[in-house]
């Protein structure tokens, strides 16, 4: 509809294509942003495998797995929210957005619990880190990456949830329909990307070496 097309675009289609391409361009920068952390992780894991494996075993596998399922579920609800917008259905849009937010908050809640545990176990890098076994310094390196990577991921989730709240308010007002739902689509892309980061973080951090020795 003409009212939704910004003055510098020729038509709605150009605006929509620009929005999607723009979000993908942004996601590429996010791949490289997290990528620096993944590169550092790769270097140190290949050098200090035993210490990294040991550190990994001290992460809560159950909570990590549950969180993975939660996040994948939130991707489903997000995809369904966008689908509802494509079908111009206001009610389902809002419901699925709220579900996504809820699942996102659940993820962050569990993460907070995990962080709390790490604090109690003296596994937070820095002054209060303490490790009884061998390779203590390298294990601290593992936890440096654990907190840096999951922390950066959590920050992105918080931003994502903020985005979703704004989106929900707009959706409730019926702003998104089959002829204009760009903000939903691009927010969905962002949210799925955050999910993908976790899809890689989970095995790299939690599943290094779980087999019983």
């Amino acid at each position, binding site marked *: 509809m003409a009212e939704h097309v910004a*003055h*510098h*675009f*020729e038509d709605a289609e*150009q605006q929509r*294509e*620009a929005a999607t*391409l*723009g979000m993908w*361009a*942004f996601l*590429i*920068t*996010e791949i*490289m*942003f*997290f*990528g*620096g*952390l993944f*590169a*550092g992780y790769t*270097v*140190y894991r290949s*050098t*200090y495998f035993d*210490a990294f494996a040991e550190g990994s075993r001290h992460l809560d596998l159950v909570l990590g797995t549950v969180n993975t399922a939660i996040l994948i579920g939130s991707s489903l609800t997000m995809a369904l929210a966008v689908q509802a917008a494509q079908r111009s259905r206001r009610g389902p849009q809002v419901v699925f957005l709220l579900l996504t937010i809820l699942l996102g908050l659940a993820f962050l809640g569990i993460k907070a619990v995990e962080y709390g545990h790490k604090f109690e176990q003296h596994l937070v*890098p*820095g*002054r209060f880190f303490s490790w009884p076994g061998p390779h203590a*310094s*390298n294990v*601290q*390196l593992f936890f*440096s*990456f654990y*907190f*840096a990577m999951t922390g*950066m991921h959590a920050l992105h989730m918080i931003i994502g949830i903020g985005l979703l709240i704004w989106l929900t308010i707009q959706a409730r007002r019926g702003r998104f329909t089959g002829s204009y739902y760009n903000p939903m689509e691009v927010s969905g892309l962002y949210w799925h990307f955050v999910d993908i980061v976790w899809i890689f973080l989970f095995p790299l951090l939690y599943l290094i070496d779980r087999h019983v020795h």
Partner: protein
Amino acid sequence: MTTAGAGTNYLNADYRVRSWLLTTDHKRIALLYLVSISVFFAIGGALAGVIRLNLLTPYGSLVQAETYNKLFTMHGITMIFFFLIPSIPAVLGNFLVPLMIGARDLAFPRINLLSWYIYVVGGTFTIVAAVTGGVDTGWTFYTPYSSTFANTNVMLTALGVFITGFSSILTGLNFVVTIHKMRAPGLTWSRLPLFIWAHYATSLIMLLGTPVVAITILLVALERGLGIGIFDPKLGGDPILFQHLFWFYSHPAVYIMILPSMGVISEVVACFSRKRVFGYTVVAVSSLTIAIVGFLVWGHHMFVSSQSMYAGMIFSFLSFLVAIPSAIKVFNWTATMYKGSIDLRTPMLYALGFIGLFTIGGLTGIFLATLAVDVHVHDTYFVVAHFHYIMVGGAIMGYLGGLHFWWPKITGKLYSEAWGRIAAITLFIGFNLTFFPQFIVGILGMPRRYHVYPPEFQFLNILSTAGATVLAIGYVLPLFYLTWSLLKGERAGANPWRATGLEWEADSPPPTFNFDRTPVVTAEAYAYPSLPEASRG
């Protein structure tokens, strides 16, 4: 394509300050950037002045070692992050990309404005860091000094640079989407001006490289602030990892700084030779090649860092490869001028200066890419001279040439051609006097980043400082005659240079929305009428 609305253009459409600070017009944002980067250029230049003054004597009589370290650090940070990287893209790119492709604005005008806000915030952080004590790590922030041992404002400066990185990312994002999606009908990729190709390639680098240095600088700040030791040897960390991550961006960054200049040169050389650019496709592809291959060579900054010798050899070989597309451009510009009708106006003088000085800088780059040679000259003034030939003799001359070339379009005024030429020539002389001696002292062994040096190098250092004075005059002159042109200059028509390109079809200065109706393109780029002599070649 010229518009009605007698006398209304993007400059006089609204005089209120808020209409400038809240603008989403890409042309106004370009001018906001012009003012901002000029401020930082002045700061960076002043710092260079103090450095050169100190180096008049071998004994470091002007400043102490600690102060000197802060001076060259701040000079590097200011010039690289706050002047060179934004310069052409944020000023000329912002202004011209929509005009050249027949669009009314960039794809995301508000993000464009956000990009400038972010730049100002990042710049403010950095200035505050500078005046409250400065930072002395070198612009390269090497660990473990920056992460553990330095007592200076590393955090604040790192934050400033981190923030500013997003300004660069957003500009690149805007350009990429705009060029893909908003070209006028008939404007196929093979008809795009080479300025656009250059900015497209530059934007790819901005998107793919900047985030890596962002996370790296953040990690240094985390290590300093929270003791999370990623690069700390005591934890088994490797300071060289920092260098890998840092240079992964910072080498492609030099292509961010030079590619847009090359785009300018293509436009200027074509116009003032009255000839199509020779080998258009090759030049366009060479921009992309530089952008891509430029990501594969960063280890040549680390030959003597304890990086594996085998990795060093790979990086050395790839560095030779990346020189090829740059050399191709130089050949093509030369071939463009051959049997052209050369007009030595100011922009052309800058372009010619660029071609000569960039060639010298580029060749010395090959010397540095040769692993064994670099072992000898690493961290000497040879390196300093090399990159100043590219950055100052190349990038900045391209920037000034572009500024002069499009000045009538941007301001609607003409500048004094006589003063333009005087400034260009002064700059060229001053530049060579400043930096050529540095090649010599570098080979002879004078190290960089020291506030003192062996006395036998004094004469050449005095020459260099004398050159810097002339160079400074060359930079200050445009300030005067360009300002004069704003106030009293002759009105410019839409196309004073009779150049090709959609931007010249809009008024000078253009109206806010550039074109009444979207232009339709049917001609190739650089459709200069062929000269009788040219058809004989």
